């Protein structure tokens, strides 16, 4: 595990030294702030309305109406950004021919995979954390419940972990970063919308498709619920793709 952290540390250093990270961070925070601002201003508009017309009977809940949709939105933006972070993890090693350095060191292959995963997740976590200034702002002027916020962030991070696992896997397949990014985006996007097919599929198949969808499992988290089935889904998703990555890298050596 120590070796994985050594590799992750180098990766993080290289991410934070690259302009790509700062471009991605700027775009991510810009879009995230824009979306959250719109949600918030709509909420304050509604609050005014309710203050004037008492009989509308709306229950205004800042958790449900501002933070929850913001987190779901963040999941969408991360879906667009994470392939750009993960695409280089193995592809660049192969293109720069630096992979032998890791392979010739006394390090297990799974430690290399874990190191790459931790590094990419770390970078995206920094982005997610940076965007949470928005929650701090709401905390300062309002009184949202803390619990659902924390579980919501946990959910977003777990989902990001799934993005990263797919991204690292795609990156192990090719030395072309663009190809890796496109594969990642396509696959993650498919896993997002796979639930759409549930309505027209049969009862059992529909249930399976619904369960497979990445975003369906996020809702419970954002509502303040940690369901073991969601947790299991995310963790096994991550483990499965990291295992595939390991296998791909191992088979590469035999070719």
């Amino acid at each position, binding site marked *: 595990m120590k070796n994985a952290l050594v590799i992750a540390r180098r990766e993080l250093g290289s991410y934070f030294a690259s302009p790509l990270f700062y471009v991605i961070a700027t775009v991510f925070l810009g879009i995230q702030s824009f979306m959250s601002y719109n949600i918030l201003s709509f909420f304050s508009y509604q609050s005014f309305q309710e203050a004037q017309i008492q009989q509308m009977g709306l229950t205004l809940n800042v958790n449900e109406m501002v933070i929850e949709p913001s987190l779901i939105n963040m999941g969408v933006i991360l879906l667009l950004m994470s392939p750009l972070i993960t695409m280089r993890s193995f592809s660049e090693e192969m293109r720069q021919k630096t992979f032998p*350095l890791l392979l*010739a060191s006394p390090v*297990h292959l799974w430690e290399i995979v874990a190191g790459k995963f931790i590094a990419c997740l770390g970078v995206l976590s920094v982005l997610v954390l940076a965007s949470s200034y928005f929650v701090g702002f709401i905390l300062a002027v309002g009184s949202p419940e803390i619990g659902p916020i924390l579980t919501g962030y946990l959910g977003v991070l777990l989902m990001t972990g799934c993005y990263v696992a797919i991204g690292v896997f795609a990156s192990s397949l090719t030395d072309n970063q663009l190809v890796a990014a496109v594969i990642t985006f396509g696959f993650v996007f498919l896993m997002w919308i796979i639930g759409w097919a549930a309505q027209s599929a049969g009862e059992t198949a529909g249930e399976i498709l619904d369960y497979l969808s990445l975003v369906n499992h996020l809702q419970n988290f954002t509502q303040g619920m940690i369901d073991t089935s969601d947790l299991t889904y995310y963790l096994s998703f991550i483990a499965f793709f990291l295992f595939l990555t390991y296998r791909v890298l191992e088979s590469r050596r035999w070719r």
Partner: protein
Amino acid sequence: MIEVENLTKSYGPRPAVDRLSFQVNSGEVVGFLGPNGAGKSTTMNILCCILPATSGTVKVHGFDVFENPLEVRKRIGYLPENPPLYPDMVVGDFLKFAARLRQVPSSKIKSSVDNVVEKCMLGDVKGRLIGRLSKGYQQRVGLAQAMVHDPAILVLDEPTIGLDPIQIIEIRKLIRDLGREHTILLSSHILPEVTQICQRVVIIHEGRIAAMDTLEGLTASLKKTQRLDLALRQGGDDVRSGLAELDCVISAAETSSGKFTLECHPGSHPQDEVARLVLDRGWGLDELRPVSLSLEDIFLQLTTEEKEVTA
């Protein structure tokens, strides 16, 4: 130190390395010589546990590369043909990373990095980005990362390729110095380079060992004799002794009836005299052919390549 036995590696049906066997003893500097595509890099990759072998065994310090790759990797420092350097890293940080990766205890990281920086003369560039360094400095950084954990064995794949003449001289000197403390296996397709650095040479051609000896032994065996294969329609002892009596022939042996192998003095054009004798005596000349030792061919190839390089 390194024991390679019947090592075979195939890419598809074609073997890149074919039943290779050799040993490297402790403290030796061994050159791995062969033209491009001879299987040098493949063998080195197998030694460093990067590629698995198709068959055969490789043991380093008694550890099998397939059974115990982690133990082997701890004891080997590897400089691949393309030095594995991250261009966006600073030299000092990169070497620290390499040391951590090789499990140098954290209390010793600083001293071992300082040590290789001094040995490889990298003091001036320690704080610079690797991507901005000249090829010669990059090669030295590559060498430094290979030895940062002070391995007993250094495996260097074409360490001087792509360098300018002055850099080549510097790197060769550095490797010679390192040879006093480490066992070194280095590959090259340049003969004079190997003669300058190594004590022993393994010549490899099309995946097989063409020759393996000390340099003195190799040159001696090459220059001593010239060999002729001779096929006659008549055989027997008196034919053999008749051939052996020729001035230019050192020894003659009959391998099967009518087939002779003659060892001759080099440079005397022995074919003429042998042919004249055979025709005079009416032994019936079927075939007369100088045996070009494949080793010689390789040497020739290697030396001409060096000429192209220096020209």
